[in-house]
């Protein structure tokens, strides 16, 4: 392989194996229960056919992978500053990416790639959703060479802009690294929601597929179900909840360690280099200028433990007309100490956001959620409860729900605010995890204000700031103030032509 990538070249030949394994795995995953079912159910005479089928599947994957490998070429057009990938087995696809549109280049290594000794390289563009490029197998030196080439142009362009700020700390040593002990604390205190969803999804599949298996084994399902319900006394229910909570914590822990193990952030020229991961080490290069929304959040436990989660949202736009909003690609840095968080903010924003003028929402903020999330469901529940005797004993639950809901809505109202200063807009929100989202006015892409006619008299309205990484909303504010702010931000955005990316 040559080093400047100016001629079309294939990926490393090991790519065939990677690609084949990938295809086999995804086919296998789709049919996993079918395969198990086949092995269990089918008479041994037909087992041969099943094995043959599997062999054909693997062979087909290899053939597919080989063709893919042959047709997949990439090169760098120096003159036009474009990176071009040709691919497609039957149809001819050409993906052209302008170098300055490249958001980030990721070099990953999965277990299989680690065994074979190659790297995967992913190019994230600022373009539409489907145009991301992923090169499955490339050797280490080529990977880093290519990465350097792809980001080279940009580094020059941006280094001129940020030299004043960044020169004092260009050493390559990590300025932030998260220890295992911190990760342990992070795992204990965050992301319950995601883990819960994961757990629920897991149980759903287990129960659903388990039933299918039971059917195929011809086991009497009723017998099992009756024993299960028999076991469910109040004591066991409590034990079960305890076990579930423990499982939840363990899953949380595993996820946190898997994703963020040995998380390190170092300055790499003018970009931040994030590396983390337990099994697959993931390196991400982020240029501070491309970060659209900087967010830090903290819940009660984390406050006591003195740590914060920082996340950096980058632009991932693409004018999708089909209606699905692009999720900004977000970089999470959990478990920073306040000092590290400040350091990180300074790195990305240039300076720390100074406290600005604070705008709080009107009390009418409470109306809609109280009505739709509390009063309406409780009334429906009461109507049902009064008519269905089985539900009647649970009426007390409605009171608990009402109280808890009231507290949560009130908290969300109390925390909902924006603070505006000359250089920053900070939005605070949340109920349990209190988050601060920081943007600079020149990251604003468009502004929407709106007002319901019945709020005209009381001068209440809403504000939405569109950025390339999502929206910032401020609801039920003083409309006169909002209009004033909008005029001010428009002035800030329009009177200087600053680059937002």
């Amino acid at each position, binding site marked *: 392989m040559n080093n400047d990538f100016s001629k079309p070249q294939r990926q490393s030949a090991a790519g065939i194996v990677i690609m084949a394994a990938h295809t086999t795995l995804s086919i296998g995953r789709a049919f996993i229960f079918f395969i198990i079912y086949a092995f269990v159910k089918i008479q041994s005479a037909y087992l041969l056919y099943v094995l043959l089928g599997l062999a054909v599947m693997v062979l087909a994957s290899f053939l597919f992978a080989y063709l893919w490998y042959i047709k997949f070429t990439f090169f760098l057009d120096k003159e036009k500053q474009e990176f071009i990938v040709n691919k497609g087995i039957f149809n001819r696809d050409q993906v052209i990416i302008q170098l300055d549109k490249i958001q980030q280049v990721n070099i990953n290594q999965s277990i299989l790639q680690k065994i074979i000794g190659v790297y995967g390289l992913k190019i994230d563009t600022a373009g539409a959703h489907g145009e991301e490029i992923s090169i499955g197998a490339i050797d280490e030196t080529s990977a880093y060479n290519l990465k350097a080439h792809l980001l080279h142009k940009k580094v020059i362009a941006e280094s001129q802009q940020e030299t004043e700020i960044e020169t004092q700390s260009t050493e390559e040593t990590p300025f932030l690294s998260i220890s295992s002990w911190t990760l342990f604390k992070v795992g204990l205190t965050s992301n319950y929601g995601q883990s819960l969803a994961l757990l629920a999804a897991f149980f759903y599949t287990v129960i659903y597929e388990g039933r299918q298996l039971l059917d195929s084994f011809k086991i009497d399902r009723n017998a099992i179900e009756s024993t299960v319900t028999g076991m469910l006394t109040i004591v066991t229910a409590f034990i079960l909840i305890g076990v579930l909570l423990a499982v939840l914590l363990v899953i949380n822990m595993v996820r946190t360690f898997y994703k963020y193990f040995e998380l390190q952030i170092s300055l790499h020229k003018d970009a931040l280099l994030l590396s983390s991961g337990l099994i697959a080490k993931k390196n991400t290069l982020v240029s501070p200028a491309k970060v659209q929304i900087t967010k830090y959040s903290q819940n009660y436990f984390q406050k006591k433990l003195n740590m914060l989660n920082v996340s950096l949202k980058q632009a991932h736009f693409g004018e999708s007309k089909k209606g*699905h909003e692009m999720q900004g690609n977000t970089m999470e840095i959990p478990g920073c100490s306040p000092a590290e968080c400040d350091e990180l903010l300074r790195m990305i924003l240039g300076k720390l956001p100074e406290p600005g003028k604070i705008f709080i929402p009107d009390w009418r903020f409470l109306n809609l959620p109280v009505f739709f999330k509390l009063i309406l469901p409780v009334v429906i529940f009461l109507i049902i409860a009064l008519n269905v005797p089985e539900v009647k004993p649970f009426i007390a639950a409605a009171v608990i729900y009402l109280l808890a809901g009231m507290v949560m809505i009130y908290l969300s109202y109390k925390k909902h605010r924006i603070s505006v200063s000359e250089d920053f807009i900070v939005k605070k929100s949340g109920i349990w995890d209190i988050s601060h989202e920081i943007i600079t006015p020149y990251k604003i*892409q468009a502004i929407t204000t709106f007002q319901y006619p019945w709020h005209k008299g009381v001068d209440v309205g809403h504000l939405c700031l569109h950025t390339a990484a999502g929206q910032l909303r401020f609801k039920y504010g003083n409309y006169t103030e909002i209009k004033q702010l909008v005029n001010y931000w428009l002035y800030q955005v329009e009177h200087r032509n600053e680059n937002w990316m």
Partner: protein
Amino acid sequence: MSTETFTNEVIDINSLPKYEEIELQHPHSDYWKIICINLSVFLSIIGIGLVTLLIFINEISAYSFLIIAVYVALAAILFFLFRVSFKKRGYAIRTHDVIYKSGIIAESTTIVPLNRIQHIELNEGILSRSFQLGSLQLFTAGGQTGHIHISGIPIEKAKNIRDLLLKKLDLTESQPIDPIV
């Protein structure tokens, strides 16, 4: 940018141009005709469907009066809603941004600064071409919600606006970009 240069620029917020007081331009009155034609086509398709149902299924013919009443009410409501929304729409092009106001119940105003426009689209439908109208779409990086779609602009005017905006886009892009704060 240092703080010193900024203090020179400190401005009175109240003296800034106010977006909410701008005189808005409304869609061309012919655009209402287009809306009416579209609605009529839509309603007549539903109407034909209903009539065939009424003729061929005997069981529901007893309710024919009710069905027709609902249909007429629906038609009236649709026309009314579209009329209201047509009346409420308005746009304005300023030196540095584009303003678009719309909304049936809630009045929402979206403002896109010219230096944030990614690209512009000018669409002409078959129907709107016969009325010499067009619609302009301004896309930003703000995604689905951050873009403006103005319908019912006389085609000549739409083209003028497009050229004007494109010229400004070129201008802003060729200008040297300020260093990032």
